[in-house]
Protein backbone atom coordinates (compact mmCIF):
# COMPACT_ATOMS: atom_id res chain seq x y z
CA UNK A 1 0.00 0.00 0.00
CA UNK A 2 1.46 3.35 -1.00
CA UNK A 3 1.71 5.73 1.91
CA UNK A 4 2.81 9.31 1.54
CA UNK A 5 3.64 11.28 4.65
CA UNK A 6 2.52 14.85 4.20
CA UNK A 7 3.63 16.18 7.52
CA UNK A 8 5.86 14.65 10.09
CA UNK A 9 8.14 15.96 12.77
CA UNK A 10 11.87 15.55 12.71
CA UNK A 11 13.38 13.69 15.61
CA UNK A 12 16.98 13.57 16.50
CA UNK A 13 19.49 10.92 17.57
CA UNK A 14 20.47 12.00 21.05
CA UNK A 15 22.94 9.28 22.06
CA UNK A 16 25.94 9.67 19.82
CA UNK A 17 29.63 8.94 19.56
CA UNK A 18 30.43 9.84 23.18
CA UNK A 19 28.14 7.11 24.53
CA UNK A 20 29.49 4.50 22.09
CA UNK A 21 33.08 5.37 23.01
CA UNK A 22 32.22 5.22 26.71
CA UNK A 23 30.98 1.65 26.27
CA UNK A 24 34.16 0.93 24.33
CA UNK A 25 36.46 2.20 27.10
CA UNK A 26 34.74 0.38 29.97
CA UNK A 27 34.80 -2.74 27.84
CA UNK A 28 38.53 -2.59 27.24
CA UNK A 29 39.10 -1.82 30.91
CA UNK A 30 37.12 -4.86 32.03
CA UNK A 31 38.64 -7.05 29.32
CA UNK A 32 42.24 -6.22 30.08
CA UNK A 33 41.69 -6.56 33.82
CA UNK A 34 40.00 -9.96 33.62
CA UNK A 35 42.72 -11.23 31.30
CA UNK A 36 45.56 -10.19 33.60
CA UNK A 37 43.73 -11.39 36.71
CA UNK A 38 44.43 -14.89 35.39
CA UNK A 39 47.80 -14.60 37.14
CA UNK A 40 47.04 -13.06 40.54
CA UNK A 41 43.54 -14.39 41.04
CA UNK A 42 43.44 -17.67 39.17
CA UNK A 43 47.06 -18.54 39.91
CA UNK A 44 48.22 -19.10 36.32
CA UNK A 45 51.87 -18.31 36.95
CA UNK A 46 52.90 -16.93 33.56
CA UNK A 47 50.24 -14.21 33.62
CA UNK A 48 51.65 -12.79 36.85
CA UNK A 49 54.40 -11.19 34.80
CA UNK A 50 51.95 -8.92 33.04
CA UNK A 51 49.35 -8.23 35.70
CA UNK A 52 50.88 -4.83 36.49
CA UNK A 53 50.61 -3.71 32.87
CA UNK A 54 47.00 -4.89 32.76
CA UNK A 55 45.84 -3.32 35.99
CA UNK A 56 47.27 0.12 35.16
CA UNK A 57 45.59 -0.03 31.76
CA UNK A 58 42.28 -1.02 33.36
CA UNK A 59 42.47 1.81 35.91
CA UNK A 60 43.37 4.55 33.44
CA UNK A 61 40.79 3.47 30.84
CA UNK A 62 38.14 3.41 33.51
CA UNK A 63 39.16 6.78 34.89
CA UNK A 64 38.66 8.38 31.49
CA UNK A 65 35.58 6.43 30.39
CA UNK A 66 32.99 8.29 32.54
CA UNK A 67 34.37 11.64 31.38
CA UNK A 68 32.74 10.90 28.02
CA UNK A 69 29.43 10.63 29.84
CA UNK A 70 30.04 13.81 31.77
CA UNK A 71 30.67 15.72 28.55
CA UNK A 72 27.54 14.18 27.05
CA UNK A 73 25.31 15.48 29.87
CA UNK A 74 23.25 18.54 29.07
CA UNK A 75 23.69 19.61 32.70
CA UNK A 76 27.14 18.31 33.71
CA UNK A 77 27.09 20.52 36.81
CA UNK A 78 24.31 18.35 38.21
CA UNK A 79 26.22 15.06 37.90
CA UNK A 80 26.24 14.80 41.70
CA UNK A 81 22.48 14.14 41.52
CA UNK A 82 23.43 10.65 40.34
CA UNK A 83 24.70 9.91 43.83
CA UNK A 84 22.01 11.82 45.72
CA UNK A 85 18.97 10.30 43.99
CA UNK A 86 19.07 6.58 43.29
CA UNK A 87 16.54 4.89 41.05
CA UNK A 88 16.76 1.10 41.49
CA UNK A 89 14.87 0.45 38.24
CA UNK A 90 17.45 2.33 36.17
CA UNK A 91 20.51 0.44 34.92
CA UNK A 92 22.29 3.78 34.68
CA UNK A 93 21.77 4.28 38.40
CA UNK A 94 23.43 0.92 39.17
CA UNK A 95 26.34 1.90 36.99
CA UNK A 96 27.11 5.05 38.96
CA UNK A 97 28.13 2.94 41.96
CA UNK A 98 29.96 0.33 39.91
CA UNK A 99 31.95 3.08 38.21
CA UNK A 100 33.19 4.17 41.64
CA UNK A 101 33.64 0.79 43.34
CA UNK A 102 35.49 -0.88 40.47
CA UNK A 103 38.38 1.61 40.08
CA UNK A 104 38.73 1.94 43.87
CA UNK A 105 39.04 -1.84 44.15
CA UNK A 106 41.57 -1.88 41.31
CA UNK A 107 43.60 0.90 42.93
CA UNK A 108 43.89 -1.04 46.20
CA UNK A 109 44.73 -4.21 44.27
CA UNK A 110 47.43 -2.36 42.30
CA UNK A 111 48.87 -0.79 45.44
CA UNK A 112 49.43 -4.18 47.07
CA UNK A 113 50.97 -5.42 43.85
CA UNK A 114 53.37 -2.46 43.60
CA UNK A 115 54.17 -1.97 47.29
CA UNK A 116 57.32 -4.09 47.54
CA UNK A 117 58.73 -2.53 44.37
CA UNK A 118 58.08 0.92 45.82
CA UNK A 119 60.03 -0.04 48.94
CA UNK A 120 62.91 -1.48 46.90
CA UNK A 121 63.24 1.73 44.91
CA UNK A 122 62.34 4.38 47.43
CA UNK A 123 65.85 5.38 48.48
CA UNK A 124 67.14 8.23 46.40
CA UNK A 125 66.54 11.85 45.68
CA UNK A 126 64.89 11.69 42.27
CA UNK A 127 61.26 12.31 41.40
CA UNK A 128 60.51 8.61 41.18
CA UNK A 129 61.87 7.78 44.64
CA UNK A 130 59.92 10.71 46.10
CA UNK A 131 56.77 9.53 44.36
CA UNK A 132 57.23 5.99 45.65
CA UNK A 133 57.76 7.25 49.21
CA UNK A 134 54.55 9.26 48.93
CA UNK A 135 52.58 6.38 47.44
CA UNK A 136 53.73 4.02 50.19
CA UNK A 137 51.94 6.12 52.84
CA UNK A 138 54.60 4.98 55.30
CA UNK A 139 53.97 1.25 54.83
CA UNK A 140 57.60 0.24 54.29
CA UNK A 141 57.57 -3.02 56.24
CA UNK A 142 59.47 -5.69 54.26
CA UNK A 143 59.19 -8.58 56.71
CA UNK A 144 58.07 -11.96 55.41
CA UNK A 145 54.70 -11.49 57.10
CA UNK A 146 54.19 -8.15 55.37
CA UNK A 147 55.10 -9.69 52.00
CA UNK A 148 52.68 -12.53 52.55
CA UNK A 149 50.05 -9.96 53.46
CA UNK A 150 50.68 -8.18 50.14
CA UNK A 151 50.09 -11.36 48.18
CA UNK A 152 47.00 -12.20 50.21
CA UNK A 153 45.47 -8.72 49.91
CA UNK A 154 46.31 -8.47 46.20
CA UNK A 155 44.56 -11.77 45.65
CA UNK A 156 41.56 -10.67 47.72
CA UNK A 157 41.05 -7.35 45.92
CA UNK A 158 41.84 -8.94 42.57
CA UNK A 159 39.19 -11.59 43.21
CA UNK A 160 36.73 -8.86 44.19
CA UNK A 161 37.69 -6.99 41.02
CA UNK A 162 36.66 -9.82 38.69
CA UNK A 163 32.91 -9.73 39.47
CA UNK A 164 33.10 -5.93 39.60
CA UNK A 165 34.71 -5.88 36.15
CA UNK A 166 31.97 -8.19 34.86
CA UNK A 167 29.34 -5.94 36.43
CA UNK A 168 30.84 -2.64 35.31
CA UNK A 169 30.70 -3.73 31.74
CA UNK A 170 27.69 -6.03 32.04
CA UNK A 171 25.55 -3.17 33.32
CA UNK A 172 26.16 -1.21 30.10
CA UNK A 173 24.57 -4.15 28.30
CA UNK A 174 21.53 -3.72 30.55
CA UNK A 175 21.38 0.00 29.72
CA UNK A 176 20.60 -0.93 26.13
CA UNK A 177 18.96 -4.30 26.78
CA UNK A 178 16.33 -2.84 29.12
CA UNK A 179 15.02 -0.47 26.46
CA UNK A 180 12.05 -2.31 25.02
CA UNK A 181 11.25 0.56 22.65
CA UNK A 182 14.10 -0.48 20.34
CA UNK A 183 14.10 -4.05 19.06
CA UNK A 184 17.78 -3.94 18.15
CA UNK A 185 18.74 -3.37 21.82
CA UNK A 186 16.03 -5.29 23.59
CA UNK A 187 17.62 -8.72 23.98
CA UNK A 188 18.79 -10.65 27.03
CA UNK A 189 21.97 -11.44 25.09
CA UNK A 190 23.04 -7.80 25.17
CA UNK A 191 25.06 -7.89 28.45
CA UNK A 192 26.80 -11.12 27.39
CA UNK A 193 27.57 -9.81 23.91
CA UNK A 194 29.00 -6.68 25.48
CA UNK A 195 31.15 -8.73 27.85
CA UNK A 196 32.52 -11.00 25.15
CA UNK A 197 33.32 -8.17 22.76
CA UNK A 198 34.93 -6.44 25.74
CA UNK A 199 37.17 -9.49 26.24
CA UNK A 200 38.09 -9.36 22.54
CA UNK A 201 38.93 -5.65 22.41
CA UNK A 202 40.48 -5.65 25.89
CA UNK A 203 42.80 -8.49 24.88
CA UNK A 204 43.60 -6.80 21.57
CA UNK A 205 44.57 -3.50 23.16
CA UNK A 206 46.41 -5.28 25.97
CA UNK A 207 48.66 -7.15 23.53
CA UNK A 208 49.63 -3.86 21.85
CA UNK A 209 50.18 -2.02 25.12
CA UNK A 210 52.19 -4.92 26.55
CA UNK A 211 54.49 -4.93 23.53
CA UNK A 212 55.02 -1.17 23.76
CA UNK A 213 55.73 -1.32 27.49
CA UNK A 214 58.20 -4.18 27.10
CA UNK A 215 59.89 -2.46 24.19
CA UNK A 216 60.30 0.89 25.95
CA UNK A 217 61.00 -0.39 29.46
CA UNK A 218 63.29 -3.30 28.63
CA UNK A 219 64.40 -2.51 25.09
CA UNK A 220 63.25 -5.80 23.61
CA UNK A 221 60.64 -8.53 23.84
CA UNK A 222 62.00 -11.42 25.88
CA UNK A 223 61.38 -14.96 24.74
CA UNK A 224 59.04 -15.60 27.68
CA UNK A 225 56.95 -12.51 26.82
CA UNK A 226 56.84 -13.65 23.18
CA UNK A 227 55.53 -17.04 24.16
CA UNK A 228 53.05 -15.39 26.52
CA UNK A 229 51.79 -13.18 23.68
CA UNK A 230 51.27 -16.32 21.59
CA UNK A 231 49.25 -17.73 24.51
CA UNK A 232 47.17 -14.56 24.81
CA UNK A 233 46.62 -14.58 21.05
CA UNK A 234 45.31 -18.12 21.40
CA UNK A 235 42.90 -16.94 24.11
CA UNK A 236 41.85 -14.04 21.91
CA UNK A 237 41.02 -16.53 19.18
CA UNK A 238 38.58 -18.25 21.53
CA UNK A 239 37.11 -14.94 22.68
CA UNK A 240 36.45 -14.06 19.04
CA UNK A 241 34.85 -17.46 18.45
CA UNK A 242 32.46 -16.97 21.41
CA UNK A 243 31.76 -13.34 20.51
CA UNK A 244 31.10 -14.29 16.89
CA UNK A 245 28.80 -17.14 17.92
CA UNK A 246 26.84 -14.76 20.16
CA UNK A 247 26.53 -12.22 17.34
CA UNK A 248 25.23 -14.91 14.99
CA UNK A 249 22.69 -16.12 17.57
CA UNK A 250 21.64 -12.53 18.26
CA UNK A 251 21.22 -11.78 14.59
CA UNK A 252 19.22 -14.91 13.77
CA UNK A 253 16.78 -14.32 16.63
CA UNK A 254 16.50 -10.64 15.67
CA UNK A 255 15.64 -11.67 12.11
CA UNK A 256 12.81 -13.90 13.33
CA UNK A 257 11.49 -11.54 16.02
CA UNK A 258 8.92 -8.75 15.77
CA UNK A 259 8.40 -6.54 12.74
CA UNK A 260 10.68 -3.95 14.29
CA UNK A 261 13.30 -6.65 14.96
CA UNK A 262 13.18 -7.97 11.41
CA UNK A 263 13.38 -4.43 10.04
CA UNK A 264 16.40 -3.74 12.26
CA UNK A 265 18.13 -6.92 11.09
CA UNK A 266 17.33 -6.12 7.48
CA UNK A 267 18.66 -2.60 8.01
CA UNK A 268 21.91 -3.97 9.47
CA UNK A 269 22.41 -6.08 6.35
CA UNK A 270 21.45 -3.36 3.87
CA UNK A 271 21.44 0.16 5.30
CA UNK A 272 24.51 -0.14 7.52
CA UNK A 273 26.10 -3.01 5.61
CA UNK A 274 29.58 -1.57 5.11
CA UNK A 275 29.87 -0.88 8.81
CA UNK A 276 28.06 -3.97 10.16
CA UNK A 277 29.21 -6.64 7.73
CA UNK A 278 32.41 -4.98 6.54
CA UNK A 279 34.00 -3.26 9.50
CA UNK A 280 32.43 -4.95 12.50
CA UNK A 281 32.19 -8.54 11.41
CA UNK A 282 34.46 -8.89 8.37
CA UNK A 283 37.52 -6.84 9.20
CA UNK A 284 36.95 -6.80 12.96
CA UNK A 285 36.05 -10.42 13.63
CA UNK A 286 36.43 -12.83 10.71
CA UNK A 287 39.83 -11.61 9.49
CA UNK A 288 41.55 -11.62 12.90
CA UNK A 289 40.00 -15.03 13.57
CA UNK A 290 41.41 -16.39 10.31
CA UNK A 291 44.82 -14.95 11.18
CA UNK A 292 44.80 -16.37 14.70
CA UNK A 293 43.68 -19.83 13.60
CA UNK A 294 47.19 -20.47 12.37
CA UNK A 295 49.69 -21.45 15.02
CA UNK A 296 52.52 -19.86 13.05
CA UNK A 297 50.64 -16.57 12.90
CA UNK A 298 50.05 -16.64 16.65
CA UNK A 299 53.79 -16.90 17.16
CA UNK A 300 54.57 -14.13 14.73
CA UNK A 301 54.53 -10.71 16.37
CA UNK A 302 53.45 -8.71 13.27
CA UNK A 303 50.53 -11.08 12.60
CA UNK A 304 49.32 -10.81 16.21
CA UNK A 305 49.65 -7.00 16.09
CA UNK A 306 47.56 -6.85 12.92
CA UNK A 307 44.91 -9.15 14.40
CA UNK A 308 44.83 -7.08 17.61
CA UNK A 309 44.46 -3.78 15.76
CA UNK A 310 41.65 -5.26 13.67
CA UNK A 311 39.72 -6.42 16.73
CA UNK A 312 40.14 -3.00 18.36
CA UNK A 313 38.66 -1.31 15.28
CA UNK A 314 35.97 -3.97 14.88
CA UNK A 315 34.69 -3.65 18.44
CA UNK A 316 34.60 0.16 18.15
CA UNK A 317 32.49 -0.28 15.01
CA UNK A 318 30.27 -2.72 16.92
CA UNK A 319 29.68 -0.19 19.73
CA UNK A 320 28.87 2.56 17.23
CA UNK A 321 26.61 0.29 15.16
CA UNK A 322 24.65 -0.75 18.23
CA UNK A 323 24.37 2.56 20.04
CA UNK A 324 23.89 4.92 17.11
CA UNK A 325 22.56 2.41 14.58
CA UNK A 326 20.00 1.31 17.17
CA UNK A 327 18.48 4.79 17.09
CA UNK A 328 18.40 5.21 13.32
CA UNK A 329 15.15 3.32 12.84
CA UNK A 330 12.25 5.67 13.61
CA UNK A 331 9.81 5.02 16.45
CA UNK A 332 7.24 7.36 14.93
CA UNK A 333 7.20 9.13 11.58
CA UNK A 334 8.30 7.93 8.19
CA UNK A 335 12.05 8.03 7.68
CA UNK A 336 15.30 6.80 9.17
CA UNK A 337 17.10 9.24 11.41
CA UNK A 338 20.42 10.66 10.30
CA UNK A 339 23.35 10.99 12.65
CA UNK A 340 26.27 13.30 12.00
CA UNK A 341 28.93 13.51 14.67
CA UNK A 342 29.33 17.05 15.96
CA UNK A 343 32.72 18.76 16.06
CA UNK A 344 32.25 19.14 19.81
CA UNK A 345 31.87 15.38 20.33
CA UNK A 346 34.71 14.49 17.99
CA UNK A 347 37.06 16.93 19.71
CA UNK A 348 36.23 15.45 23.10
CA UNK A 349 36.71 11.87 21.90
CA UNK A 350 40.11 12.68 20.37
CA UNK A 351 41.14 14.84 23.34
CA UNK A 352 40.26 12.16 25.86
CA UNK A 353 42.00 9.47 23.79
CA UNK A 354 45.17 11.57 23.78
CA UNK A 355 44.86 12.29 27.51
CA UNK A 356 44.41 8.56 28.22
CA UNK A 357 47.52 7.76 26.20
CA UNK A 358 49.58 10.45 27.93
CA UNK A 359 48.51 9.47 31.46
CA UNK A 360 49.01 5.77 30.76
CA UNK A 361 52.47 6.38 29.24
CA UNK A 362 53.40 8.54 32.23
CA UNK A 363 52.38 5.83 34.69
CA UNK A 364 54.26 3.13 32.77
CA UNK A 365 57.30 5.43 32.67
CA UNK A 366 57.47 6.30 36.37
CA UNK A 367 56.15 3.18 38.10
CA UNK A 368 58.37 0.15 38.67
CA UNK A 369 57.23 -2.24 35.95
CA UNK A 370 59.67 -5.05 36.75
CA UNK A 371 57.99 -8.37 36.41
CA UNK A 372 57.37 -10.57 39.43
CA UNK A 373 58.64 -14.01 38.60
CA UNK A 374 60.90 -12.80 35.79
CA UNK A 375 64.67 -12.91 36.07
CA UNK A 376 65.85 -9.83 37.94
CA UNK A 377 68.47 -7.94 36.03
CA UNK A 378 71.33 -7.42 38.49
CA UNK A 379 73.17 -4.13 38.50
CA UNK A 380 76.94 -4.32 38.26
CA UNK A 381 77.30 -3.50 41.94
CA UNK A 382 74.89 -6.22 42.92
CA UNK A 383 76.79 -8.67 40.73
CA UNK A 384 79.98 -7.83 42.61
CA UNK A 385 78.25 -8.32 45.96
CA UNK A 386 76.92 -11.69 44.85
CA UNK A 387 80.43 -12.66 43.62
CA UNK A 388 81.93 -11.85 46.99
Amino acid at each position, binding site marked *: *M*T*TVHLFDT*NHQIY*WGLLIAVYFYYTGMSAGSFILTSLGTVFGIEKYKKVSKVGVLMAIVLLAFAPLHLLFDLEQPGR*ALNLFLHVNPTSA*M*SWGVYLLVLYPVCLLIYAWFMFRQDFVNNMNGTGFKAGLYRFLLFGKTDMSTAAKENDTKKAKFFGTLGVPLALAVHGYTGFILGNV*QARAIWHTPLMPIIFLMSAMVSGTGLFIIVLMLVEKFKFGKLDADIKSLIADIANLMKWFIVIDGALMIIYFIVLWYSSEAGY*AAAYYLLHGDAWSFLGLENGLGMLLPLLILLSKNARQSIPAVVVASLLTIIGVLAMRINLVIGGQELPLTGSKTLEYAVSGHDLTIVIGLALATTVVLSFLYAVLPMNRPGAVVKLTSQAVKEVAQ
Partner: protein
Amino acid sequence: MGKRYAMVIDLRKCVGCHACQVACKSENNVPLGVFRNWVDELETGKFPNVSRHRLPRLCNHSENPSCLNVCPVKATYQLEDGTVLIDYDRCIGCKYCIAACPYDARFINPVRKTAEKCTYCHERLEAGLQPACVNTCISGARVFGDLNDPTSEVFKLLATQPVNVSKPETNNRPQTYYIGADQKALRPNLLDIVGGEK
Protein backbone atom coordinates in the same frame (compact mmCIF):
# COMPACT_ATOMS: atom_id res chain seq x y z
CA MET B 1 -10.83 6.34 43.93
CA GLY B 2 -8.53 9.19 42.88
CA LYS B 3 -8.32 10.75 39.49
CA ARG B 4 -6.71 9.11 36.46
CA TYR B 5 -6.29 11.56 33.66
CA ALA B 6 -6.39 10.35 30.06
CA MET B 7 -6.97 11.77 26.61
CA VAL B 8 -9.24 10.43 23.91
CA ILE B 9 -8.67 11.71 20.39
CA ASP B 10 -11.57 11.14 18.04
CA LEU B 11 -9.99 11.08 14.59
CA ARG B 12 -13.39 11.07 12.88
CA LYS B 13 -13.62 14.67 14.00
CA CYS B 14 -10.00 15.73 13.42
CA VAL B 15 -9.59 17.95 10.35
CA GLY B 16 -5.80 18.27 10.54
CA CYS B 17 -5.68 22.00 11.23
CA HIS B 18 -2.64 21.68 13.56
CA ALA B 19 -4.16 24.21 15.95
CA CYS B 20 -3.32 21.92 18.90
CA GLN B 21 0.32 21.90 17.82
CA VAL B 22 0.40 25.69 17.70
CA ALA B 23 -1.50 26.18 20.95
CA CYS B 24 0.93 23.84 22.75
CA LYS B 25 3.94 25.74 21.47
CA SER B 26 2.43 28.99 22.56
CA GLU B 27 1.15 27.86 25.96
CA ASN B 28 4.33 26.09 26.98
CA ASN B 29 6.89 28.34 25.35
CA VAL B 30 8.36 25.39 23.42
CA PRO B 31 11.48 26.44 21.45
CA LEU B 32 11.82 26.19 17.68
CA GLY B 33 12.52 22.80 16.17
CA VAL B 34 11.03 20.68 18.99
CA PHE B 35 7.44 19.72 19.78
CA ARG B 36 5.55 18.46 22.82
CA ASN B 37 2.55 17.79 20.65
CA TRP B 38 2.41 17.31 16.91
CA VAL B 39 0.15 15.95 14.18
CA ASP B 40 1.41 13.33 11.75
CA GLU B 41 -0.41 13.44 8.45
CA LEU B 42 -0.36 10.85 5.70
CA GLU B 43 -2.11 9.76 2.58
CA THR B 44 -2.56 6.13 1.55
CA GLY B 45 -3.65 4.32 -1.58
CA LYS B 46 -3.71 5.15 -5.26
CA PHE B 47 -6.15 7.38 -7.11
CA PRO B 48 -9.10 7.02 -7.08
CA ASN B 49 -8.90 4.83 -3.97
CA VAL B 50 -7.20 7.09 -1.47
CA SER B 51 -7.65 8.17 2.08
CA ARG B 52 -6.00 10.67 4.32
CA HIS B 53 -5.11 10.06 7.95
CA ARG B 54 -3.99 12.20 10.81
CA LEU B 55 -2.54 11.27 14.14
CA PRO B 56 -2.02 13.88 16.83
CA ARG B 57 0.79 12.71 19.08
CA LEU B 58 1.72 13.68 22.61
CA CYS B 59 3.10 12.04 25.73
CA ASN B 60 0.92 9.04 26.58
CA HIS B 61 1.29 9.56 30.35
CA SER B 62 1.54 5.79 30.57
CA GLU B 63 0.69 3.64 33.57
CA ASN B 64 4.15 2.09 33.45
CA PRO B 65 6.32 4.70 31.75
CA SER B 66 9.67 3.56 30.33
CA CYS B 67 11.09 7.05 30.89
CA LEU B 68 10.33 6.95 34.61
CA ASN B 69 11.91 3.52 35.00
CA VAL B 70 15.18 4.46 33.33
CA CYS B 71 15.74 7.93 34.82
CA PRO B 72 18.94 7.59 36.91
CA VAL B 73 18.11 10.53 39.22
CA LYS B 74 14.33 10.16 39.59
CA ALA B 75 13.82 13.50 37.86
CA THR B 76 10.82 11.97 36.06
CA TYR B 77 7.96 11.25 38.43
CA GLN B 78 4.29 10.37 38.24
CA LEU B 79 1.47 12.08 40.11
CA GLU B 80 -1.46 10.22 41.69
CA ASP B 81 -3.60 11.32 38.75
CA GLY B 82 -1.22 9.60 36.30
CA THR B 83 0.46 12.71 34.95
CA VAL B 84 4.14 12.07 34.24
CA LEU B 85 6.23 15.15 35.01
CA ILE B 86 9.92 16.11 34.99
CA ASP B 87 11.73 17.96 37.74
CA TYR B 88 13.66 20.41 35.57
CA ASP B 89 15.95 21.34 38.44
CA ARG B 90 17.03 17.76 38.98
CA CYS B 91 17.32 16.47 35.39
CA ILE B 92 20.98 16.03 34.42
CA GLY B 93 20.27 15.70 30.70
CA CYS B 94 21.60 12.16 30.23
CA LYS B 95 18.92 11.56 27.56
CA TYR B 96 18.26 7.96 28.65
CA CYS B 97 14.52 8.74 28.89
CA ILE B 98 14.55 10.04 25.31
CA ALA B 99 16.22 6.86 24.08
CA ALA B 100 13.77 4.69 26.05
CA CYS B 101 10.46 6.37 25.13
CA PRO B 102 8.71 4.30 22.42
CA TYR B 103 6.68 7.34 21.32
CA ASP B 104 9.38 9.95 20.60
CA ALA B 105 7.52 12.11 23.09
CA ARG B 106 10.63 13.57 24.68
CA PHE B 107 13.35 15.91 23.53
CA ILE B 108 16.02 18.16 24.98
CA ASN B 109 14.83 21.73 25.41
CA PRO B 110 17.65 23.62 23.69
CA VAL B 111 17.17 26.59 26.01
CA ARG B 112 16.66 24.93 29.37
CA LYS B 113 19.02 22.02 28.60
CA THR B 114 16.90 19.34 30.22
CA ALA B 115 14.54 16.68 28.95
CA GLU B 116 11.04 17.93 28.25
CA LYS B 117 7.65 16.68 27.11
CA CYS B 118 3.91 17.21 27.42
CA THR B 119 2.69 17.84 30.99
CA TYR B 120 -1.05 17.84 30.19
CA CYS B 121 -0.55 21.59 30.82
CA HIS B 122 -0.25 20.85 34.51
CA GLU B 123 -0.53 24.50 35.60
CA ARG B 124 -3.75 24.88 33.61
CA LEU B 125 -5.22 21.76 35.24
CA GLU B 126 -4.38 23.14 38.66
CA ALA B 127 -6.24 26.31 37.72
CA GLY B 128 -9.27 24.23 36.73
CA LEU B 129 -8.72 24.64 32.97
CA GLN B 130 -8.36 22.09 30.16
CA PRO B 131 -4.98 21.46 28.47
CA ALA B 132 -4.28 24.07 25.76
CA CYS B 133 -4.55 21.57 22.90
CA VAL B 134 -7.97 20.40 24.08
CA ASN B 135 -9.13 23.94 24.69
CA THR B 136 -8.17 25.02 21.19
CA CYS B 137 -9.37 21.99 19.21
CA ILE B 138 -11.84 23.38 16.68
CA SER B 139 -13.89 20.20 16.24
CA GLY B 140 -13.86 18.76 19.74
CA ALA B 141 -11.75 15.82 18.58
CA ARG B 142 -9.54 16.01 21.66
CA VAL B 143 -11.27 15.06 24.88
CA PHE B 144 -9.51 15.16 28.21
CA GLY B 145 -10.72 14.02 31.59
CA ASP B 146 -10.77 11.61 34.50
CA LEU B 147 -11.07 7.92 33.58
CA ASN B 148 -12.25 7.07 37.09
CA ASP B 149 -15.23 9.40 36.87
CA PRO B 150 -18.18 7.60 35.18
CA THR B 151 -19.77 10.92 34.27
CA SER B 152 -16.70 12.21 32.42
CA GLU B 153 -16.60 12.46 28.65
CA VAL B 154 -13.48 10.28 28.36
CA PHE B 155 -15.12 7.53 30.45
CA LYS B 156 -18.19 7.56 28.21
CA LEU B 157 -16.14 7.49 25.00
CA LEU B 158 -13.98 4.60 26.21
CA ALA B 159 -17.08 2.72 27.34
CA THR B 160 -18.99 3.16 24.09
CA GLN B 161 -16.45 3.42 21.29
CA PRO B 162 -13.80 1.05 19.90
CA VAL B 163 -10.46 2.61 20.75
CA ASN B 164 -6.82 1.96 20.00
CA VAL B 165 -3.52 2.91 21.58
CA SER B 166 -0.04 3.24 20.12
CA LYS B 167 2.36 0.30 20.66
CA PRO B 168 0.46 -1.59 23.38
CA GLU B 169 3.08 -4.37 23.24
CA THR B 170 5.71 -2.28 25.05
CA ASN B 171 3.99 -2.67 28.44
CA ASN B 172 3.94 1.11 28.87
CA ARG B 173 0.12 0.96 29.09
CA PRO B 174 -0.34 4.27 27.27
CA GLN B 175 -3.26 6.56 28.17
CA THR B 176 -3.85 8.39 24.92
CA TYR B 177 -6.75 6.59 23.24
CA TYR B 178 -7.56 7.05 19.57
CA ILE B 179 -10.91 6.51 17.90
CA GLY B 180 -10.58 5.66 14.24
CA ALA B 181 -6.77 5.75 14.05
CA ASP B 182 -5.21 4.14 11.00
CA GLN B 183 -2.60 1.50 11.76
CA LYS B 184 -0.21 3.04 9.22
CA ALA B 185 -0.26 6.21 11.30
CA LEU B 186 0.02 4.49 14.69
CA ARG B 187 3.41 2.96 13.95
CA PRO B 188 6.02 3.63 11.28
CA ASN B 189 5.96 1.24 8.35
CA LEU B 190 9.48 0.00 9.07
CA LEU B 191 9.62 -2.55 6.27
CA ASP B 192 8.78 0.20 3.80
CA ILE B 193 11.40 2.49 5.34
CA VAL B 194 14.27 -0.01 5.31
CA GLY B 195 13.18 -1.52 2.00
CA GLY B 196 12.65 -5.02 3.38
CA GLU B 197 9.08 -5.40 2.12
CA LYS B 198 8.68 -8.32 -0.26
